[in-house]
C-alpha cells in the first residue's frame, strides 16, 4: 500500500485553488466506485487523472460535471461549497466537460451544433441570424486552429473532426475549468498536436484542465500534476515533471509492466491470405498485401487512411469494386461477413459496442453468437454446452465476470474485448483482424491483450492488427503496412520500422504507383 504521506499537499501550487474535492465517496450497487478521495485543482494546471478502468476516474469526472452526486464528501469551488445537482449547474459554475461519447446532432451544421440553444438572433429575437452564427463559429474555430468548415453538416465530418468540434463547443462557453475524458482516443498524431495546442492556449493563470487519459506520452507532454486512482482510492498526486512514466504505471496497476518487444524476425512461412487490387467505390485503390501464417501484420496510418475500410471490404461487410482474395492458396469469394466467418476470418471492430457485441445479452450468448450452428441438436439450442464453452473461454482468456450469465453491458472494456475474441476463437478462426484492439482499455488489461495476441500467433493464428497507437504498432507487429488515402504506401519490417518512417509513409500521398497495375493486365 502506498503511504498516505506521499499524497497531495507536498506540491507547491501554481495558483489559487479553483476546485477541490474533499473525502469524496460514491457507491453503486455492488461496487464502491470512489472512497474518500481528495482532489485539488489549482489555476494554471493541467491535471491528469489516470488509473485503470474501474479505478474511479470516470466516476470522479461525472461528479465534477454534475452527472453523479457524491454519497460522501463535498466539492468546493474557490473555497465555497459547490453542489452540482445537474450537468447544467456544472455549466453555470464554469465547468465544461468533454465526454468520450459525442453529443452532437448529426443533421445540423458545425456552427448550429456549437451554438445550439444560444443562436444569435435578429428582428427582436424572432429569426435566427445564420450569417452571424457562421461568422462566430468560424472565428472560434480559427482561433483554435481547427480546420473545419462551420457550414458543413456534422454527419459529414470524420470522427476526429467531430472530437475537435466537441472541444470547440466546450471552449465556446468561456469556462474556467475544462474536463476532458480521453480526448485523443479518436485522434491521430497530427490532430493530437492540434489538441495539445488548444490545451496549451486554454490554460491561463485563471483556468485549469482536468485531463483523463490512458496514453502516457500525452500525460508526459501535458500534465503539470498527475493524480493516480486505483480501485476507487487515491494513490498519489505528484507534479508532472517529477514523476516518471514507469512510476505512474506502477502506481496505476500496483505492479511493473514488462514491456515486450517482438522477437527477432520470424522465419518466412507460407502465406495464408493474399489480397490483390482491393478497391472500394468510396476510398480504397488497389490495396495489395499478403498475410503470412503466424504473423502479426500491423496496419498503421492516420484516421481515414482506409485501414478499417480495408478490413471491412475484405470480410464482405462493405461492397468492393475490385479485388482478388486468395485464402490458403485458393481464390475465394467473400460477399458477406458470413462468407468470411465460414472461411475462418474474424473481425474485431474498433467499436465493440456497435459492431462486436450484443450488450443486452449475456457472456454466453455473445461467445457463441458466431457458432450457434454447432450448439443445436435437432434445431434446439444446447444451453448447458453453450455455457460450458463460454466458461471455458472466460477461463482461458481470464475474462473477469461474475458468471457467464452476466450481461455484457456490465463488463469493463477489456473484458468485453475478450468476449469478442472468445466469439472468434470459439468459431475457430485462423485469421483474426483486430481493429484498435486496446482502444479504451486500461494499461493492465492492454498487456493482457498483447500477451493474448502473442499466444495466438504462437498457436499458428494469423493476425491483422489495425492500430493508431504508434507504440502498439511498433511493439506488436512482425511487419507493418502503412496506409494513406486509401492506398498502402509501404511495408516495414519490425526491425527497420521507426515512428518517423511510419509517419513519413502515412502522410505522403502515394500517386505514382499506378504502374503496378500493368503486371495484372493479363488477369482480365
Amino acid at each position, binding site marked *: *500500500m502506498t503511504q498516505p504521506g506521499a499524497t497531495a499537499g507536498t506540491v507547491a501550487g501554481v495558483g489559487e485553488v479553483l476546485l477541490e474535492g474533499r473525502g469524496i465517496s460514491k*457507491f*453503486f*450497487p*455492488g*461496487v*464502491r466506485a470512489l*472512497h474518500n478521495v481528495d482532489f485539488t485543482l489549482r489555476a494554471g494546471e493541467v491535471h491528469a487523472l489516470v488509473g485503470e478502468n474501474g479505478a474511479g476516474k470516470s466516476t470522479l469526472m461525472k461528479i465534477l460535471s454534475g452527472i453523479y452526486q457524491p454519497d460522501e464528501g463535498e466539492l468546493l469551488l474557490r473555497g465555497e461549497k459547490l453542489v452540482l445537482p445537474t450537468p447544467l449547474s456544472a455549466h453555470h459554475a464554469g465547468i465544461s466537460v468533454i465526454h468520450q461519447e459525442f453529443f452532437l446532432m448529426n443533421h445540423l451544421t458545425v456552427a448550429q451544433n456549437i451554438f445550439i440553444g444560444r443562436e444569435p438572433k435578429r428582428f427582436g429575437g424572432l429569426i435566427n441570424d445564420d450569417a452571424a452564427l457562421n461568422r462566430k463559429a468560424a472565428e472560434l474555430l480559427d482561433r483554435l486552429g481547427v480546420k473545419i468548415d462551420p457550414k458543413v453538416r456534422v454527419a459529414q465530418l470524420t470522427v476526429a473532426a467531430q472530437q475537435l468540434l466537441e472541444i470547440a463547443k466546450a471552449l465556446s462557453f468561456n469556462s474556467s475549468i475544462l474536463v476532458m475524458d480521453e480526448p485523443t482516443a479518436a485522434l491521430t498524431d497530427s490532430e493530437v498536436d492540434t489538441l495539445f495546442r488548444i490545451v496549451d492556449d486554454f490554460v491561463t493563470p485563471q483556468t485549469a484542465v482536468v485531463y483523463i487519459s490512458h496514453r502516457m506520452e500525452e500525460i508526459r507532454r501535458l500534465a503539470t500534476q498527475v493524480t493516480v486512482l486505483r*480501485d476507487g*482510492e487515491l494513490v498519489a498526486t505528484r507534479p508532472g515533471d517529477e514523476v516518471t512514466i514507469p512510476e505512474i504505471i506502477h502506481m496505476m496497476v500496483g505492479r511493473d509492466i514488462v514491456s515486450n518487444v517482438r522477437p527477432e524476425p520470424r522465419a518466412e512461412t507460407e502465406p495464408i491470405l493474399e489480397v490483390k487490387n482491393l478497391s472500394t467505390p468510396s476510398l480504397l485503390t488497389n490495396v495489395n498485401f499478403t498475410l503470412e501464417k503466424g504473423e502479426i501484420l500491423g496496419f498503421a496510418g492516420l484516421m481515414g487512411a482506409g485501414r478499417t475500410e480495408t478490413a471491412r471490404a475484405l*470480410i464482405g*461487410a462493405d461492397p468492393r469494386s475490385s479485388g482478388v482474395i486468395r485464402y490458403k492458396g485458393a481464390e475465394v469469394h467473400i460477399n*458477406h*461477413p*458470413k462468407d*468470411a*466467418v*465460414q472461411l475462418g476470418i474474424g*473481425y474485431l*471492430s474498433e467499436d465493440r459496442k*456497435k*459492431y*462486436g*457485441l*450484443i*450488450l*443486452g*445479452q*449475456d457472456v454466453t*450468448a455473445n461467445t457463441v*453468437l*458466431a457458432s*450457434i*450452428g454447432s450448439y*443445436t441438436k435437432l*434445431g*434446439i*439450442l444446447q*444451453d448447458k454446452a453453450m455455457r460450458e464453452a463460454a466458461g471455458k473461454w472466460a477461463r482461458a482468456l481470464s475474462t473477469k465476470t461474475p*458468471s457467464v*450469465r*452476466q*450481461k455484457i453491458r456490465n463488463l469493463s472494456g477489456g473484458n468485453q474485448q475478450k468476449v469478442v475474441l472468445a*466469439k472468434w476463437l470459439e*468459431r475457430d478462426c485462423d485469421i483474426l483482424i483486430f481493429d484498435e484492439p486496446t482502444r479504451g482499455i486500461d494499461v493492465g488489461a492492454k498487456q493482457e491483450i498483447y500477451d493474448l495476441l502473442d499466444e495466438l500467433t504462437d498457436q499458428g493464428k494469423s493476425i491483422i492488427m489495425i492500430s493508431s497507437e504508434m507504440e502498439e504498432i511498433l511493439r506488436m507487429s512482425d511487419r507493418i503496412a502503412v496506409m494513406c488515402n486509401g492506398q498502402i504506401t509501404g511495408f516495414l519490417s519490425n526491425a527497420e520500422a521507426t515512428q518517423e518512417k511510419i509517419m513519413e509513409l502515412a502522410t505522403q500521398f502515394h500517386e505514382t504507383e499506378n504502374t503496378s497495375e500493368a503486371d495484372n493486365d493479363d488477369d482480365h
Partner: protein
Amino acid sequence: MTTTTETATITGKRARFGAIPDRYKAFIQQGMVVLVLIMLVVFFSVMNSNFANWGNISSLLLASVVTGIQALGLSFVIATGGIDLTPGFGMAATSVFAALLIAQTGGLGLPIWIGILGALFAGALLGAINGFLVSYVRMQPMIATLAMMMVAWGTALVLADGKTISLRSVEGYDQIAIGQLIPGVPNAVLILIALAIVAGVLMNKTAVGRYSLAIGSNEEATRISGVNTRRWKMLAYVIGGTFTGISGILMSSRLSAAQPTLGQGYEMYAIAAAVIGGTSLRGGRASIFGAVIGAVTIQTIFNGLTVMGVQDQWQKVVLGAVVLLAVFVDIVRRGGKEE
C-alpha cells in the same frame, strides 16, 4: 490491510441489497405482469359476482385466443426491432382463403385439413412478403406492413366478394375452436397453450429466436458475426404471418364463418398484448409467456368492464390507458437506459 476487508464488507452489503442478477430480473418482471392480471380478476370479481363464474372465465379465455396467437407471432417480429400491422386483416384474408377452400356453398368443399394448410400457407406468404419488403427491400416495417395491411384487407374483400362466407355446413369445423377435449375448456384455449409452448421453444431454444433477439439488439454486430441477418429477419416475419394464419382458422372456426371485414383493430390488440407482457418495442427483448398473459389481461379488461356495464367505447379508452401504462413501466424499468 484493513481497507481490503472494508471493501469486501461494503461491496458485499451493497451486492445483497442492490444487485439482482439479470436472470432473476426477468422472473420478477413476469411475476409483476401476472400479479397485475390477478389484481384485475380480483377487482372485477368483487365488483360483480357474475364475473367469476367458470362460464364467463371460459368465454373470456376463448376470446383471448386470437389476440394471444397473434401476439405470439408478433413477438418474433418485435424482437428484431420491427413491427407488423398485418395480423388483423391478415386474419380476415387467411380465414376467407380457408373458407373458399372448404365451404360447401360458395367454396370448393375440400377437406378441412386442406383449409387449415391453406390458411397457414396464406399466412406464411403474407409474412414472407412483409419480411422480404423489410429485410431485402429495406422498407420501414411500419410502412411496409401498413401497406400490406391494406392489401390483405382488400384481398379479403375481393376473395369473399364483400360477403360473409358461412361455414355452418362444414361439419366439425367449429369444433376446432369450441369443441372441448377437456370438458369446460374450449379447444382453442388448448391450442393457444400448445402454440405458446412452441413459440417459447422457438424463441428461447432455437437459432431463430436467438438471432431475432440479437438482430433487435444490434443488427450490425450480428451481421459481422457471420449471421445472415436478412434471412433470419425475414423468417421472423414468416413466423408472424403463420401465426396470423392460425388465428384466421380459429376465428372462422369459432364463428363458423369467414368475415372479410372482421380484423380491424386486432393488430392493435396484439401489439398491446405483447407490450403489456413485457416485450420491448425497441427490439432485443421478448416474452412469450408475457404475450399470452397480455392477451388474457386485455380480454379481462374488456370482459370485466362489460360485466360491470361499461360501454364498449369506454373500454377502448381504458385499454389505451393500460397500454400507455405498460410502456411507461417499460421506460421506468430501463431507467432511461438505451439497449
